[in-house]
């Protein structure tokens, strides 16, 4: 399933010519394979429960935009990497991990990427990606923890908005 997912995402990403195009084209596919709501909730940590429903909606929307935007920017101008898939490691009945190795064409280094999946009523969904031992969700949780501690939901939304604004202005 991950193999289909990554191949699908990669072929969309590497057939598009602008990062905006990638972002809009890749989103439906990502939504199909990623549990974005769980990713966001876990990335925000326990402070998430203090968010109002409106804030939660806004924050997850901005967070999703940020992720898709930054990663599609990264793809532009690079060549499609080669990906080797390892064997699935089952962790309990509703959880598994898929180790992969990504080999960029331009560099002589490769890196380990582990997809962590969770069985939801709708099927298996990715809820975290661990790149060279660094968990995507845990990394964001560490970042958000301090922001939430200082200013709660409004601070998170402000931080995401300003990040998105600066990301789009520095792109040109």
């Amino acid at each position, binding site marked *: 399933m991950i193999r289909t997912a990554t191949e699908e995402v990669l072929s969309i990403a590497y057939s598009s010519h602008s990062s905006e195009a990638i972002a809009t084209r890749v989103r439906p596919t990502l939504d199909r394979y990623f549990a974005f709501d769980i990713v966001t*909730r876990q990335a925000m940590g326990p402070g998430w429960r203090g968010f109002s429903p409106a804030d939660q909606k806004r924050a997850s929307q901005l967070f999703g935009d940020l992720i898709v935007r930054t990663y599609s920017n990264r793809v532009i101008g690079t060549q499609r990497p080669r990906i080797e898939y390892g064997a699935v490691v089952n962790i309990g009945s509703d959880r598994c991990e898929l180790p992969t190795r990504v080999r960029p064409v331009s*560099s*002589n280094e490769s890196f380990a990427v582990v997809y962590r999946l969770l069985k939801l009523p709708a099927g298996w969904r990715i809820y975290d990606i661990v790149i060279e031992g*660094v968990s995507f969700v845990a990394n*964001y*949780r560490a*970042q958000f923890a301090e*922001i939430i501690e200082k200013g709660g939901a409004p601070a998170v939304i402000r*931080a995401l908005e300003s990040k998105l604004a600066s990301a789009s202005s520095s792109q040109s």
Partner: protein
Amino acid sequence: MNNPIFWILFLAFSLSGCATSGKRSAPPPNYSSRSNTTDEFANGQKANDPFIRFNRTMFAFNDTLTKYALRPIARGYAKIVPRPVRNGITNAFDNAQFPVRFVNCVLQGKLKRSAQETGKFVVNSVAGVGGLMRVSDHVPSLDNVPAEDFGLTLGVWGIPAGPYLVVPLLGPSGCRDLVGFAGDYVIYPLNWHAVGIIHHAFISNTINGALSGTRTVNGLPKTVQDYDQMTAAAVDPYIAIRDAYISNRAARIKK
């Protein structure tokens, strides 16, 4: 005991004392698991960063330095020297670093890995023309040998990471890894004159300066690119890099 290794070990053990002050306790398990996701991220340790104010200042300093000096140098260099040549130079320096990885494999008791390192070194030095080409990537058993260093060795020996530190110019590190850095410096063959193995000071200093300068500048385009990629998606770049550094080192110790 004039041996620098003893001095480094002594320093490592005395520094590990400063590590224990860190907050090591996991947050209380008060997270109610709604839906079927138990909160496996909650038990992550709080980062050991007592010098956060100093570190943030250094981070900002390094960031400014990257912006105004390193990035322009990296861009200029990348324009003059094409990527295959840069990769070749990187490979050659990595190959010269073989003793560092080998010694650390042995110190960690990883004999199979030390044999792999030796195999890599021989294959790349001979077939890869002095290490310029990493031929070993095409040998399945020599592909992806995790690179060991003395900071990792100390970690394997049970010495805690200690407080996180952002070092001017060098970037993210920690108490233990800084000690490791010093240890590896001694083992790295291109530094040998500095600890008294090659005697003619002026000649060896000049050669050494040129070599380490080449290595640094040659690696810059990649370093700057990595830094930009890591900070691009970050809401708080300082925390993002701190967490990435600490998690990556911890994962490499387990490997």
